[in-house]
């Protein structure tokens, strides 16, 4: 079911307010889930469940937050940074994120910064409009 970007953003903001207990004005499009909004792994699951209900879709976790498969593959990580093939994998698995800044210093500890409110909206926009 197609939805406008504004509608999606509004719904995402409400989900994040409920799941993370933050105020709506903290949920800017650039806000990172972990750094700015304090989300942890249980919150990521809570968010996925709520988004599934809100948009009546199934969201395989590896589609929205695929970092784990990246982190666990030795071909993709070297000295705490993503390798070339790691970055390629990232580009393929997470087209909804903006890796332009990240690729200059692909430190795996900074991977979490890719999960922004915008990334979620991008993912949903694509998924809902493809259906």
């Amino acid at each position, binding site marked *: 079911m197609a939805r406008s970007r504004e509608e999606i953003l509004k719904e995402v903001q409400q989900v994040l307010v*409920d*799941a993370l207990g933050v105020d709506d004005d903290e949920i800017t499009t650039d806000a990172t889930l972990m750094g700015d909004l304090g989300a942890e*792994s*249980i919150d990521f*699951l*809570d968010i996925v469940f709520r988004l599934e209900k809100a948009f009546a879709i199934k969201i395989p976790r590896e589609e929205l937050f695929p970092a784990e498969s990246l982190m666990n593959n030795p071909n993709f990580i070297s000295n705490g940074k993503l390798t070339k093939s790691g970055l390629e994998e990232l580009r393929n698995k997470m087209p909804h994120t903006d890796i332009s800044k990240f690729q200059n210093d692909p430190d795996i500890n900074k991977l979490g910064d890719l999960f922004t409110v915008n990334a979620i909206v991008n993912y949903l926009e694509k998924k809902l409009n493809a259906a």
Partner: protein
Amino acid sequence: MRWIWIDKFIEFQSGDHAVAVKNVTLAEEHLHDHFPGFPIMPECLLIEAMAQTAGILVGEAKNFKEKVILAKIKKCVFFDYVKPGDSIKIHAKIESIAPEAASTSGKITCEDKLIAQIELMFSHIDQNLAGKQFPKENFVFTDMFRSLLRGMVLTRPDCDTPKSEQP
């Protein structure tokens, strides 16, 4: 004091919802501290009654293979309090379930009064918490909990033949 906050199940639809019952009695020592002269079942123990009802519901949905632990109280609201002599019903429903976690909603009632609404999230800890070591056996679902389901006919919404919990 035994750490069990439900007495029996009166309804159990596998993978979907369940209703448990707990009787509240003056014989429970902790009530005499909360509060001395006016015993009230502490709200945190109402949450635990829900956690055990919903946790068993989630655990049974995976045949008790997962160690199901309370990870987050999404929201709980209390409208009234519970006293000795009251019998409460704990209604739990699975909202979502995935390999690593589950989300439940539910309410606690006492006769026709709404006592609480409680939404929880459970983690299947072997699938999460990388790096932490846990005993191999499922220490969460002990005989004490599994015995609550003994003799219950667990209906499944999608099949005609109910299954019963093996003793």
